[in-house]
């Protein structure tokens, strides 16, 4: 058994930590991420912006 087996064990440990956390229901949510640099957050802003433009086009004078 070489030291590479130990490296594999360490990587399995690291991925298990992330996997267990994810499976316990706390996957990262890019749409609610606290990070303003999140791509997901930016996409949400873009989608909202497009929806807003569409809404304005459909109803140019909202009451």
């Amino acid at each position, binding site marked *: 058994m070489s*030291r590479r087996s130990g*490296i594999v064990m360490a990587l399995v440990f690291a991925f298990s930590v*992330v996997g267990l956390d994810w499976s316990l229901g706390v996957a*990262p949510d890019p749409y609610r991420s606290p990070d303003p640099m999140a791509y*997901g957050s930016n996409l949400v802003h873009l989608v909202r912006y497009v929806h807003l433009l569409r809404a304005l086009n459909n109803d140019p004078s909202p009451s």
Partner: protein
Amino acid sequence: MVIRTLLITGLLLTLAVSAGVRFSLLLALGLLIGFSLERFGFGFAGPWRRLIRERNAQGFVAQLVAIGLTAVAIQPIIAFAPGTLIGAIAPVSLTMVAAAFVFGLSMQMILGCGSGTLVNAGSGNAIALTALPLFCIGSFLGTLLVPFAIEATPHIPISLTESFGVGGGVTVTLFGLVGVGFLASWYSAGSLWNKKLLIAGVILSALAILHVLVAGQPWGVVYGLGLWVAKAAQGLGWDAASAQFWIHPINAQALQSSILTDTTSLTSLGLIGGAALAAWRDSSDQPFKQPIAVWYFAVAALFGLLLGISSRLAFGCNVGALFSGIASGSLHGWLWLIAGFAGSIVGVKWRDQLWRRASEGLS
């Protein structure tokens, strides 16, 4: 090599999309730190051991250089953006000093400090792999003990930057480091300078400064490990509301969020991954099994547990308290250095005795 690069790039891009660019950068920084520490052989427990046993101060001096360079950069940066950036300022107390002593002792018993245990585990070291899960559990147990320690003895945070201003804080820090360097040179039996270790120190310093800019706080290790176990305990039915430490808003928020958005978790996972990358190529020619008796692994597990508990009670390990604490201008970092080194002197003696017994007739 190409496959590994593609895998890492894919991992970082996936994290950037799923959690955010900042978190992806933090994982990248952790990977780079782990890779550098493993590739250059830069550490904390080992150099202290060589200073104590062989009067070789080269690694210790490289640590002082790395801390000094980091201090010159981060104390002004943090003072320039108060609130947005925070330093590793922690309280000074009797329990903190006692815990730093135990940490110094424990890290010599398993030949791995906070960062060292992660890096050694990542590079496939059997003792570190045994100690790591217990280190995580100990870190969690430490969070349960912190409120009792705070009630038992006065805890006073002292920031050199607040006491003497930014210029004064940096000057006092540098004078302190030079003073410790002189003590080491007086004790040392050979050359103080090692080019490879100094390069590693400069790289580590640059990465630590980048860490402050990206994370908003200095590099730390232990918090993330305790958080992983707290989350697992919660999954098994443990009520976090029963623990004073975990009802603090920041910690409660961390418990409810993904570890992929937790700063220390990401850098600690990165340390394991970076060390694995650095060690992978030559690892197939090296044996996994170490020539020691099985009972030494139980010793490693016990001291791994103590490493975790003491690091929490000492408000950080060699990274969060010693490296980042001193670099941030926190007095607790200096007391950690003294107490941790005293513990290491005892730890080196104990470890030599036990290691000799554990390897008798097996090598």
